[in-house]
Every structure is written in structure tokens, then in C-alpha cells.
């Protein structure tokens, strides 16, 4: 039960949460009984919300009210005092949902979690009370496993800014890449105040807005270039090791501070002072807390190898003493404003720290599929008979509007968002930086100055005072990688007597009304509700049998016997487990030297990512469910692409991989046309700055080389993978370099290849284990187990391309009473 906390996206430690969440979502065979249920209460389509079983729409300002109502519902059942609130939620379905959810939470007492992303102390207090009442502490929630991240207190920062601007501060040190000039709502005041200070030092590894405002900068190395240690949560301690020597003339922050403070002079005089300092500290403070190793050297060596260690911390005695009644006045009130805006942290560049990372800028936002910009999500509505109606008639994605809150104004493109609550809009933070480097400066618009604090000094990430203009302009370079978003969004068709139809199928044509089933009858994506899983599996089995029967009518004899010898590589993707963190996509880009093409090229649909994560909305048009389908080269055994290449640049290996010979490709693009999954990518222009024509080539030692052409940036390339030139096709190779490496390792160790020896980049990056790579001919492999799962299907199986990727049906755990029309 989640009030807006995007724990699968950007809230606290999403990778850990995702991994834990997935464990209770994956189903083996048809046993759905143990599956968890996530109900999300929010206004915008957050990443977590898109993975929820239910989304109930509430406005940002009424989250407090909703929490209070839930609290009272639980409190009455467990005998706790209620809180005094009145008022109704603006969405009647939400009122009913709270009651239903309260019942479900009661049934799952001790095994449930209630979360909220609210930055209001009182509201979080209520959430604690709810969890307490449900007995979740000690079960699903444990204070002894507390996170050490995000320890900042908004009020203290706010007080600091007051001191700074009033001149009470003499000097400021910004450490750990802190960047409040950009990401604090009062950043402008900080900047102006810094200008008047005599001493302001930025201890930072990257150029930033704050660093530009400071008088001095002490550049630190990147964390991968230096030693360090971390303590992310109670009991977890990790050592950060450098992977390369520092590239530039930098000094670790710790060493800077030690130098200035004059401490530990003997360490400072030795060589590698940082390493010595950390090691000494571990010996002094941490070695004593563990019981596994007898000598410190053993402890140190083993921890270095593992990367982290778990130490015993004393269990804390915590007691609960919250006065509910005092909270009533402090929760946020439902504002009766025409429009509310929810600000959120996007997945790729986070709060702005990664804005200069082109991989993350070009990673399409999983929900909007937009790159290199932030957008205003606007609501849409099905008009009941024939078309969609859009907020302020903004009927096209990429139209520019002005978002104004008091004196702050930004111009942003809009995206028509399915599932955005009417009367609300949403916008991402993290964009609009201006001093971060070549890639990130000037991308998008910053919403930080629009954030306001409540009476307790906590920054509120929503506003009830936005004013959105109508269409002001059009972003000609608006870059989205997906233009059709739905596979069966249902609504009522008044012109057909109120029957429930797929409204997207009705509106997909320019003239006329399309045909029902035009999208949903495609065998791309299959979903089931957990309580009907057995029937869905039965239905799937019949369909697959029919497809396989059709596929057996072939002109040529098939090669299944041939592929049954040796290895036959394949992959399984579990759609239930995919929570679209998009780590797989970025990992693929990193591993395979996939070029970044920039906003203009993506706006022309020239994106190069080998792997994409298609996002489809399905279900109720007001609050649809979402499925994410990672789509990569399917390595079809009857590949349509191989047949049509005139120069034999692509063929099938004896191990079932579709191979691509880049240096043979002439670039006719017939293979890309013939791919039913459209996974092939063409190098339309010289994206790798490695032009063949001598007069077009870039001088790598020139100061003004374009991005990617200089020697430093080229260090990002993986030496195991070719860099492709202009005019050739490329696509997922199932990390063939890793396959070869795995085989070579096994050969050198004089043993057979085992399942798990070879892991593709996408598989390695996935926190939920949704992607599994393996050998179909290895009967004991995990892959085979998954491919034989009754929920597995092949996308577009009836085209008889014999894809090697099996998708497992998405199963959602629905309670049909939530969000339904009936009482």
C-alpha cells in the first residue's frame, strides 16, 4: 500500500527494493497464491505506480487526508485512537478503495507495508502509526535495518540559507559534490550570498552550478579512481576501490580535509595516505565489531575481495510514543485549486547529479519514453464515444507550454499521459542545469525554484498553484522513442450502448474507427490476473499449439536437429519481474559501444539503443496498467533478416545466434525492414566520430574535437567490441563477446561450460532477475526451466521466425473491487 513512494524508481535504494519486491512477484508455473499485491495511491504515473496492481487516483495535496482516512480505518479495527479529520477525497473511487485496502491490510497483518513519499512530518507520523497498528514492525519493517541515505533535514538547510544570506557565515565548504545552487529551491539566494563571501570552497569531482559560484574548487577524483568506504545502512560496510589511476590532477576530499586540518601527519607523509588512513580506521573502529576473522589482515583482505562486510550493531530499543491528536492540524489540506502539479525525481538523471551523463540522458524515460528533456505530463480523457480529449486541447506530444508558479516560469513540452489524474499535471526535477558540462548543460528546465516548504520547513514536492498556458510553441526537436502507447485500453463506448471497448483501437486510424482487436489480437504481449491464472495458462497453451501447428507447414525441412547439437543460446524475460529500471538498456549501451546520437537525431527516430523497453498501457482508460517489454534481437532460427541481406553480412551461427558482420554490411537496410520486431539499428550518420574520409576525420589531439572523438572520451569504449562505422547495421549480439569469453575461460580451466558462466550485460544489470540467458540445450539450466514454464510464450510466434527469446506472461494480482464502478 503505497502513497506515492517511488520505491522501484528513485526512492531511497530502488535497486535493493526492486530485488526484494520481485521475490514476491515471480510465480513458478501457475502457483500465484504467494504473490504480493501493490496498491498505489498517486496522481501521476510514477515508475512504481506503473508496476502496481492497482493505481488509485488522488491529488497530491490530499495525500495527507488519504493517509489519515486509512489510519482511522485501521485504527478502528485495532483499537488505536483515531485522528480528527473531515472531508472527502476528490475521487469517490479513492474513498472506496481506502476501505477495501484497509480490509486487505488487516488480513495481511504483520506481512504488509504502508509507505508514503510525503515530506510532511505529520503524515509520515501517521504512516508509522498505521504500520504500528498493523504490527508490521519487526516483520516487514525493521528499524535495525535502517538506511543511512538521505539524512539531510530540510529545516536545517533552510536555517543555513538564512544565516548565509544574512551574512552570519564567513566560509562555506561544499563537499561530496553537493550542489544546492542548482537543486535547492533557494539556490539563487545561495548563489548571490556566496558571491559576497570571502571563502567558499567546492570539493567536487564534476563541474557544477555551486562550484561555479564558489571562489575555490578542490577537485576530487571520481569514486572509481580513488579509495573510500561506505556505510549505506546499519551494519553494512563497504570498501570502495579504485579501478584506474587518477586521470587528472585531483585530490580526494579526505586528503584535502586532512591537509587543511593538519591531522594524521604521519599518514599524510607516507605514500598512499588515503589507503592508509582508511585501513587504519577500519582496524581501529570496525575490526573489533566482527567475529569472523582472527587477524585484521585477514579481515581486510576478505572484505576487499567481497567488497562489503556485515558487522553487528547493537540492536536498538525503540518504543512507540506518538500523539496522534497533535498531528491532525499539520497534515496537508486538500486545496481546491484548479490544477495541482506533482514534481518527481526521474529515473535516469535522478535529482540532477547525472545530467552530464549522455547514456542517462539518452535512456528513454520508461514512462514517457522521452529523452534529453523533461516534460509536463498532462491528463487525457476518453470522451465516451469517439476520441480522446486533452488538457487545454494539447493534442500532440511535444507542444510547448509555460508552467508558471508565482514568479517562476519554465517552458516545457507536454506529454499526454495515460493515468494522469484529471486536474493534475506532473513534471520531473533534475533537468535545466546550466553549468555541468557539454552534455547536460541547457537540457530541459529546472523545477527546483518552484518548490515551496511547509510550516515545518520541509520542502514539498508538489504545488497547488500552477498555471499552465495553452500551446505556446512546438518543440521541433522533441525526442521520444515511442509514438504508439497502448495495447488495449478499455473504456465505455456510449455510441454503442455503453459497451466496453478498446478505445485505443477505435482511435488508431485517421479516418474511421479501426477494428476491435487490431492491436490486442497481436501476439506481442500476454497478461493474466492472478486469480484467473490457470485459465489464462490454458488459453495460452491452446494458442501456442495452434501457432506451432501452423509453423510446422514448411517448404524447407527445419534445422531443429542441427541446433540440438552443441549450444543453442536463448533468453527468458519475465514480464512480471521487469520493473523497468532500464538498467539493462544502459548496461547494453555501455557494454557494446552503442553510440549516443543526441536529441535531434532521436527526434528523427534515429536512436541506436540495441535494447529497448517497450511500454504499453492496457486496462481501464482512467487508470491503466502498464507492461514493460524489453525487446532485443530475438535471434530467430528462421530469421527473416538473414534471408534478405544481399552481401551475406548476417547469418546464423551453429549455436543459434544471429551474427552480424559489420565490416561486410553495405547498408541496404533490407534486414531492418524485414525484422518484425524492428530491433535492428542503422548508423545513419557518423555517430562514432570515426569517419572514413580523411578530410572528415577528427584530430584526436585537437582541443575542439567533437564529443566522442577525443582520446579521453574514447576510454569509455569496451575493447572487446567493434566500433561500427557510418552506414552499417548493428543489433543485439547476445553479448557474443561474453559468450566467447565464457567459453574460453572454461576451456582454459579444462572443464565444460556451466550454466551461469556466461551472463549477458542486460542480465547482469537487472536487479530483479527478470532476464535469464542460457543454453537451451543444457537441460538442467535455469533458462530451460523458465522456457518450460507454462506462462512462457514467444512474441509473434505465428510468423514462424522461431525466436529464441521466451517471454513470461505478466501476472497482476488484482482485487476487482478497487477502482471499480460499483459500490
Amino acid at each position: 500500500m503505497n502513497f506515492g513512494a517511488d520505491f522501484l524508481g528513485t526512492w531511497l535504494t530502488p535497486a535493493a527494493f526492486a530485488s526484494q519486491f520481485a521475490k514476491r512477484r515471480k510465480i513458478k508455473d501457475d502457483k500465484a497464491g504467494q504473490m504480493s499485491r501493490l496498491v498505489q495511491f498517486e496522481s501521476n504515473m510514477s515508475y512504481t505506480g506503473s508496476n502496481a496492481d492497482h493505481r488509485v487516483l488522488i491529488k497530491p495535496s490530499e495525500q495527507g487526508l488519504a493517509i489519515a482516512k486509512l489510519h482511522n480505518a485501521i485504527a478502528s479495527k485495532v483499537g488505536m485512537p483515531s485522528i480528527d479529520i473531515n472531508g472527502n477525497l476528490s475521487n469517490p473511487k479513492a474513498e472506496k478503495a481506502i476501505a477495501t485496502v484497509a480490509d486487505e491490510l488487516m488480513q495481511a497483518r504483520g506481512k504488509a507495508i504502508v509507505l508514503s513519499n510525503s515530506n510532511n512530518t505529520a503524515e509520515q507520523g501517521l504512516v508509522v502509526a498505521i504500520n504500528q497498528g498493523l504490527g508490521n514492525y519487526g516483520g516487514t519493517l525493521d528499524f535495525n535495518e535502517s538506511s543511512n541515505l538521505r539524512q539531510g533535514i530540510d529545516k536545517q538547510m533552510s536555517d543555513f540559507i538564512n544565516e548565509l544570506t544574512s551574512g552570519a557565515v564567513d566560509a562555506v565548504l561544499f563537499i561530496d559534490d553537493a550542489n544546492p545552487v542548482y537543486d535547492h529551491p533557494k539556490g539563487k539566494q545561495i548563489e548571490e550570498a556566496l558571491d559576497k563571501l570571502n571563502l567558499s570552497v567546492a570539493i567536487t569531482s564534476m563541474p557544477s552550478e555551486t562550484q561555479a559560484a564558489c571562489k575555490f574548487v578542490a577537485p576530487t577524483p571520481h569514486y572509481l579512481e580513488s579509495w573510500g568506504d561506505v556505510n549505506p545502512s546499519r551494519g553494512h560496510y563497504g570498501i570502495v576501490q579504485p579501478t584506474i589511476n587518477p586521470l587528472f590532477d585531483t585530490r580526494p576530499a579526505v586528503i584535502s580535509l586532512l591537509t587543511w586540518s593538519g591531522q594524521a601527519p604521519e599518514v599524510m607523509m607516507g605514500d598512499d595516505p588515503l589507503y592508509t588512513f582508511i585501513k587504519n580506521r577500519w582496524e581501529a573502529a570496525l575490526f573489533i565489531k566482527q567475529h569472523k576473522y582472527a587477524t585484521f589482515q585477514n579481515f581486510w583482505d576478505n572484505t576487499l575481495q567481497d567488497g562489503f562486510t556485515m558487522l553487528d550493531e547493537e540492536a536498538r530499543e525503540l518504543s512507540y510514543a506518538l500523539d496522534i491528536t497533535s498531528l491532525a492540524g499539520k497534515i496537508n489540506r486538500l486545496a481546491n485549486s484548479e490544477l495541482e502539479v506533482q514534481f518527481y525525481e526521474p529515473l535516469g538523471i535522478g535529482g540532477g547529479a547525472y545530467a552530464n551523463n549522455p547514456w542517462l540522458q539518452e535512456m528513454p524515460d520508461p514512462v514517457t519514453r522521452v529523452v534529453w528533456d523533461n516534460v509536463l505530463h498532462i491528463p487525457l480523457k476518453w470522451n465516451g464515444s469517439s476520441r480522446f480529449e486533452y488538457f487545454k486541447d494539447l493534442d500532440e506530444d511535444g507542444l510547448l507550454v509555460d508552467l508558471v508558479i508565482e514568479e517562476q516560469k519554465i517552458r516545457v513540452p507536454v506529454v499526454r499521459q495515460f493515468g494522469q489524474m484529471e486536474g493534475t499535471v506532473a513534471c520531473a526535477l533534475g533537468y535545466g542545469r546550466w553549468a555541468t558540462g557539454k552534455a547536460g548543460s541547457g537540457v530541459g528546465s529546472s523545477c527546483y525554484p518552484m518548490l515551496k516548504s511547509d510550516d515545518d520547513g520541509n520542502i514539498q514536492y508538489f504545488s497547488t498553484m500552477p498555471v499552465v498556458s495553452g500551446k505556446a510553441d512546438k518543440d521541433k526537436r522533441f525526442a521520444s522513442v515511442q509514438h504508439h502507447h497502448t495495447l488495449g485500453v478499455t473504456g465505455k463506448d456510449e455510441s454503442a450502448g455503453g459497451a466496453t471497448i478498446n478505445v485505443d483501437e477505435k482511435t488508431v486510424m485517421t479516418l474511421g474507427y479501426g477494428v476491435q482487436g487490431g492491436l490486442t489480437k497481436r501476439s506481442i504481449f500476454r497478461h493474466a490476473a492472478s486469480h484467473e491464472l490457470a485459465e489464462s495458462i490454458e488459453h495460452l497453451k491452446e494458442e501456442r499449439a495452434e501457432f506451432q501447428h501452423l509453423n510446422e507447414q514448411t517448404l524447407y525441412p527445419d534445422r531443429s536437429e542441427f541446433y540440438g547439437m552443441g549450444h543453442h543460446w536463448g533468453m527468458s524475460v519475465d514480464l512480471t519481474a521487469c520493473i523497468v529500471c532500464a538498467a539493462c538498456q544502459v548496461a547494453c549501451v555501455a557494454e557494446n559501444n552503442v553510440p549516443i546520437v543526441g536529441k535531434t537525431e532521436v527526434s528523427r527516430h534515429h536512436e541506436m539503443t540495441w535494447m529497448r523497453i517497450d511500454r504499453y498501457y492496457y486496462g481501464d482508460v482512467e487508470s491503466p496498467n502498464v507492461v514493460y517489454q524489453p525487446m532485443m534481437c530475438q535471434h530467430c532460427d528462421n530469421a527473416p533478416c538473414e534471408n534478405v541481406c544481399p552481401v551475406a553480412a548476417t547469418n546464423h551461427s551453429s549455436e543459434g545466434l544471429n551474427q552480424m558482420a559489420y565490416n561486410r554490411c553495405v547498408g541496404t537496410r533490407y534486414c531492418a525492414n524485414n525484422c518484425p520486431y524492428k530491433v535492428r539499428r542503422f548508423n545513419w550518420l557518423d555517430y562514432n566520430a570515426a569517419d572514413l574520409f580523411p578530410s572528415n576525420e577528427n584530430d584526436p589531439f585537437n582541443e575542439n574535437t567533437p564529443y566522442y572523438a577525443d582520446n579521453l572520451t574514447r576510454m569509455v569504449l569496451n575493447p572487446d567490441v567493434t566500433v561500427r562505422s557510418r552506414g552499417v547495421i548493428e543489433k543485439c549480439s547476445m553479448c557474443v563477446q561474453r559468450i566467447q569469453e565464457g567459453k574460453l575461460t572454461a576451456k582454459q580451466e579444462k572443464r565444460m561450460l556451466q550454466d551461469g558462466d556466461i551472463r549477458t550485460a542486460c542480465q547482469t544489470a537487472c536487479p530483479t532477475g527478470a532476464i535469464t540467458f542460457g543454453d537451451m540445450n543444457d537441460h538442467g539450466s535455469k533458462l530451460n526451466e523458465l522456457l518450460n514454464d507454462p506462462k512462457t510464450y514467444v512474441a509473434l510466434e505465428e510468423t514462424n521466425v522461431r525466436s529464441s527469446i521466451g517471454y513470461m506472461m505478466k501476472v497482476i494480482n488484482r482485487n476487482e473491487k478497487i477502482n471499480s464502478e460499483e459500490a
Partner: protein
Amino acid sequence: MSAIISPIREPLITGNKNYHQITEDICAPSERTPSLAWVVAFIVAVSFLSFGVFCILWTIWFGIGTWNLNRTVGWGWDITNFVWWIGIGHAGTLISAILLLFRQKWRTGVNRAAEAMTIFAVLCAALFPGIHVGRIWVVFYFFPYPNSRGPLWVNFNSPLLWDLFAISTYFTVSLLFWYTGLVPDFATLRDRASGLRKKLYNFLSFGWTGAAKHWLRFESLSLVLAGLATPLVLSVHTIVSFDFATSVIPGWHTTIFPPYFVAGAIFSGFAMVLTLMVITRKVLKLEDYITVEHIDSMNKVILLTGTIVGVAYLTELFIAWYSGYIYEQFAFMNRVQGIYWWAYVAMMSCNVLSPQIFWSSKMRRNVTVTFMMSIFVNIGMWFERFVIIPTTLARDYLPSSWSYYSPTWVEIGIFLGTLGIFFTMYLAFTRVAPVVAIAEVKAILKSAGNQYTGEHAKHSHAAPHGAEIKAH
């Protein structure tokens, strides 16, 4: 084969010509200085050609990214133009070869120019597979030649490779067939010329003397080449249709494409022949050789092939519905109702509706109407290929990949450049070579000249001394 020529046959050569007049009339355009009309047209054509060359060089220098093709629509104006030009080229061979096999005398008025048009159209078409590739500097990889890379040969399963063989064979055979027929006509020009012109035509005429044995072999060769060229025409456009028919994309993967494409090719080719002939006969004063009869006959072919094409469109729609295969059904609904519905409307009205005007004999024999119709048909056939290629690709199996395509100035420039190439070469052709097949027209004079047949025949066709005259 001997037959009596019926007196009610319409004459194919008007103006009471004799052999010498035929020679004079047809050789005149290449012997006199070019008219102002020719010069102006040539300058316009060359300027289009130059712009086209510039656009091609721009594409090669910067990359296919200067076009608006994208990850979903990999072929757009480039392959549309390719198929359009190849289709146009088919009329020449049809007129020369198939009509020869069917003993249609009216082919002699138009076959020379039509075959020339074929050569030029195939050249324009062959440009596109060359320049649409991402790496034109290795386009020789298409050719199976022994090399030090294995040797690595090519993929003979690929329809694009079949295209390579088909189009080069078609170009070669058309060129040989055209040139073989041109040799006696070049001899005619040689024997009338002097100085540099004589040297030029001497070279081009290969030492032709007109000996009986040579004519015997000439006819024998023509017959066999015609017999080879006929299945070649059918096979070449069939193979071009295989570029689409052998793929898996719904709307492309259909067995109707080979006959549909061939009929469409003949349709558009005849339209282009008419466009050229209507202007040529007027400007070069060849109305006596390219008569209204010729135009009437060609319009009948247009009506027939246009109707076949229309039936094919309707069959596609029917089969899409009947198949029950959702991807195919959606693909066709998308053509009619989707984002490119205007292209479909243009295609249907220009190709199916407008040729129906030729049911009327009066319309068939009206030169102005014919000219306008020929332009419409070519526009309609261009839209047909546009509907087939980008419309189908833009929305195929996976809706997440759906996209949109519209050309950049570079692509439009290349297309205009090919028009420039085509008309430049055609205009040069009219200056250098006889536009009508002199020898062949002379051969049918006695049976088709208007003094020998038709309503106003002054002489009968009966030969003195009762010699039999073979029908041609």
C-alpha cells in the same frame, strides 16, 4: 506466314509516304540544328540533373542520415523511385518484344523510342540501389567475384541480389536488342552524313551494309531476343516484387505481388511512352508515323493493365479480410484509413478510376486527354509504390515501433535529378539517333501505309506477278 491484308485495317503510316520520304522525315531531327524548344528543354533537364548530382554527393559525404528514413521506415522515396523507374522501363521491352511475338505492326512506330526510354529508365532505376546503401564505397560487395576474404561470396537467397542479376540482365538484353535494331538505322544516317558526323555514324553502325544474309540473321536474332526478352520482362518485375513479397511484413508478404507488379509496370511504362510520344511526334513532326492509331492502341493497353491493377487492389482488400489474419487486416485498414490515407486515395483515383475514361474510343483518340492521363497514371503509380513501401513499414507488427516518414530536400532532389537524367538522355537520343525505327517502318509501308490500306487506299496491296507478301 502469308496472309491477305484486310482493306479495313486502319493505316499506321499516313501522308502517302514512300521509302525515301520515310528516311527524310525520320532522319531530319538529328540532321538539322536543334530547335529552341529542344534547347530549352535540354537546359532544364541538365539543371535538374546537376541538382540531383549535388544531392547524391551530399548524401554520400554525410550519410543516409541526410534523408528522413528511420529505424522503422528503412526505405522511402529511394526504393519507391527505384521501383517506379524500373516499372516505367518495362514498356519498352513489352512493345519491342512481346508485340513482335504477337505480330503487332503498330509497334514499329514507337518501339525505338520506347526501347530507348527503357534503357534510360533502367539507368535511373539502377542508380537507387547504388546510392541508397550506407556504404557506397563497398557496394562492389554485391558482385560475386573471387576475393581474398575467404573467398566470401554473396547471399544468393536474397531478393536484392536477384535484383542485381535481373536488372543487369535486363539492362544488357534491352541494350543489345535496342542497339541491334539501331544498327541499320545508324547505317542510314551514316550514308547521308559527311565529315565528323559520318565518322561518328560509321563507328556506331558497325559496318552494316544491308546484305540479305545479314537481314536474315537480323530477323532471326530479333525473334530470339524477343522470345527471351518477354519472359525476362515478366521475371524482372517479378523479382523486383519479390523484394517485398518474400519479406514477412504484413501488406508485403503476399503472392499477388508478381502479377500485380508486372501489370502495374506495363501500365506505368505505357503511360510514360505516351507522355514522350505525344510531345515527340508534335515537336519532331512525326505525326505520320506515330499516328492516332498508335495512341489508340497504347491507350487500350493502359485501360487493360489499369483494370488489372485495380482488380489486384480489390483482391488484396478482399483477401486481407478473408484471411482473418489480424496483421494483414490491420495493414490494409491502415492503408485506407491511417496516417497516409491521402496517398491511397491518390493511388486509387489515378490508377483505377481515371483510366476508365479510355473505354470511350473518342477519348482514346484524343491526344490532349491522352497526355493528361499519362501524367496522372505515372503519378498514381508512384503513389502505389509509396503506399506499398513507407505506409506499410510505418505501422507493422509492433506498435511500439510505429513511426512516420516524410522526405527531406535531399531525397526530393535526387528524384528530380533522375528526371533530369532521364530527359537529358532522351533529348540527346532524339538528336543522335532516329526516334522511329526507320527500317521497320519501311518494311510495313506496303501493308500499313495509308495509300495501301484503310478507307482511302489508292493502291491495293496485291503485288504484281502474284508474289505473295508475308504479313509482318
